[in-house]
């Protein structure tokens, strides 16, 4: 009896060790930033999926608003087919886009000090707004607009944080002094961010008739960035369900086998 209890204690303690030491790594850094509100994303949960209509709207917001300062350098134009763009639509998207052409037949990459350019193809990476970090800082009063490809994975509570940040711009409290070229946002560590509130109502015109409120655009572009960070998410969860189901059945069978084998000992 005693050993039975001690064993349960043992098991419970191991579970506690495990879960607590894991949670310990998730303790928020004490930046004092406001805690982002939990949103419901279609990608959440065991059955998470991409809402392709939303991702297309999100691409539109990225392309028309964010892309003037932020890159998504890990994404190729061809990847846009994964969120529901047809190859004709992708061709339309890249119609006016030019990329560095690379060396020509004479081995030249520049002409008169300017890069040689060629029209973009679907196999090209989505072009970045600036040629390098220095140019980006020069154009943004010294601040570097980060690449957005992995943003939802590169911040704690990524998607919720992004949405809170995008919709969270407001006037600073009376006792808070905002530095020059900075903007107040309670969700940003330190409360001051170089980015100006990027979204405004009707900032884009959605072709599917969705009303382009700040809330809507923020959710759409965040959903798009969940996709750029984890394009495998949908496939991962679908495969995961099958694997879990298999392992459940398999383990149940192994349990039966184990019982059967050990029964011989009696």
């Amino acid at each position, binding site marked *: 009896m005693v050993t039975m209890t001690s064993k349960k204690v043992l098991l419970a*303690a191991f579970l506690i060790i495990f879960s607590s030491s894991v949670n310990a790594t998730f303790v928020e850094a004490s930046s004092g930033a406001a805690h982002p509100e939990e949103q419901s994303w279609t990608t959440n949960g065991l059955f998470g999926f991409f809402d392709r209509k939303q991702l297309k709207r999100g691409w539109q917001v990225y392309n028309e608003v964010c892309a003037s300062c932020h890159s998504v350098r890990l994404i190729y134009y061809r990847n846009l087919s994964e969120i529901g763009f047809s190859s004709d639509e992708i061709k339309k998207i890249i119609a006016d886009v030019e990329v560095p052409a690379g060396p020509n037949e004479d081995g030249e990459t520049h002409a008169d000090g300017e890069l040689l350019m060629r029209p973009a193809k679907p196999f090209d990476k989505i072009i970045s707004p600036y040629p390098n970090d220095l140019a980006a800082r020069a154009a943004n009063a010294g601040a570097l607009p980060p690449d957005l490809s*992995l943003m939802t994975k*590169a*911040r704690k509570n990524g998607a919720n944080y992004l949405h809170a940040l995008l919709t969270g711009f407001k006037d600073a409290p009376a006792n808070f002094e905002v530095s020059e070229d900075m903007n107040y946002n309670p969700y940003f560590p330190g409360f001051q961010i170089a980015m100006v509130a990027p979204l405004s109502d009707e900032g884009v015109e959605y072709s599917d008739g969705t009303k382009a409120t700040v809330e809507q655009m923020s959710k759409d572009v965040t959903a798009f960035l969940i996709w750029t960070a984890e394009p*495998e998410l949908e496939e991962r969860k679908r495969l995961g369900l099958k694997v879990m189901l298999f392992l459940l059945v398999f383990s149940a069978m*192994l*349990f039966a086998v184990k019982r059967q084998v050990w029964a011989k000992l009696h």
Partner: protein
Amino acid sequence: MSTPTWKNPIIKWIDHRLPVFTFIDHSVVTYPTPRNLNYFWNFGSLAGLVLVIMIASGVILAMNYTANTSMAFDSVERIMRDVNYGWLIRYIHMNGGSMFFIVVYIHIFRGMYYGSYKEPRELLWIIGIFIFLAMMATAFLGYVLPWGQMSFWGATVITNLFSVIPFFGETIVQWLWSGFSVDNPTLNKFFSLHYLLPFIIFGLVFLHLWALHTHKSNNPLGIDIKGDQDEIPFHPYYTAKDALGVGVFLLFFLGFVFFAPNFFGEPDNYIEANPLVTPPHIVPEWYFLPYYAILRAVPDNFVDVWGLLPVIIPAKTAGVIAMFSSILLLILLPWLDTSKVRSANFRPTYFWLFWIFVIDTVILGFVGAKPAEGTWLLVGRLATLYYFVHLVVLVPLVGRFEKTKPLPDSISAAVILSGTDIKESS
């Protein structure tokens, strides 16, 4: 143990010249095992399984990884996006690291609870500690490879620890870096060593099993096998039991891989390494947190407070010594523990000491994740102190003065007494 007679002529021919089949038969088929092992004895084979999974997934990752500071981060992202099932293999490898430590920590604590390190299994235990050290080195090296912010800054912090070595410290650190900071040569070196060490672990595991099979498994009663009635062949009993463990473990492991692959990770490591930007909090992976807490627990005025050590030892040096000795001290555990009784089930005082020690290490883990200041620092110091007091003072003393419970005559006697040896082991 008799040599099996093989019927198949090919097997017979081979076995006569190179007895691999006899070896397998003796190791995992007829191998005699105590009949009362509980499920905590599953974690050794699970650790072996994780090692194989890590090597297999790692070999595939290495086919697509580029060890160059300007390409490493992007090559990992290419694996995640453009390599067929690259995301699966990479998430398996990434979470496999955490799984390895979960499984091995349970395995080590099981050894501590049931006194598995005691005579005649001291070397078995010590080899295990070396496996653990090699694992820690491998995990640290591997974490540097994706070349994220935490990779870079973790590598900088940990390699700098060696600067406390007297006289040669700076030279050793520069030798580790192959330069004057963590940079491209460091990354290349770490990649090479990260690929090498798992095979050294594999060799150590072989020695670990050799030592194990010499004196056989300990068991929840901690008493020796006294005859045939105490043992059962490994196959089919423990192959079946281990297989069930594998099924349940894979549910747990792959649950993270498919549904929360970044649960154990730091978001900062999805930002490419930047030597010019220091992250606000540099934290190691969760499995190093207790040691990180010990490292940072040593006060600046350490020497003044204690007055026992030469004045030349600065706090950082003392912290590094404390951190390494917290693991190396475990090598001496078979001799620090003076009790002749192995299993904590028969040691009423040690039973509680064990659990307080477990809780102490959990507290250290918590503290390791917090900034080293205020209450957390104080808690970290007390927990660090207790860690050493437990090993150096309490364990030796308790073994001497504890009144242990009477041990059963034999494993089979205890099994018959409890009436069931499937659900209950002791």
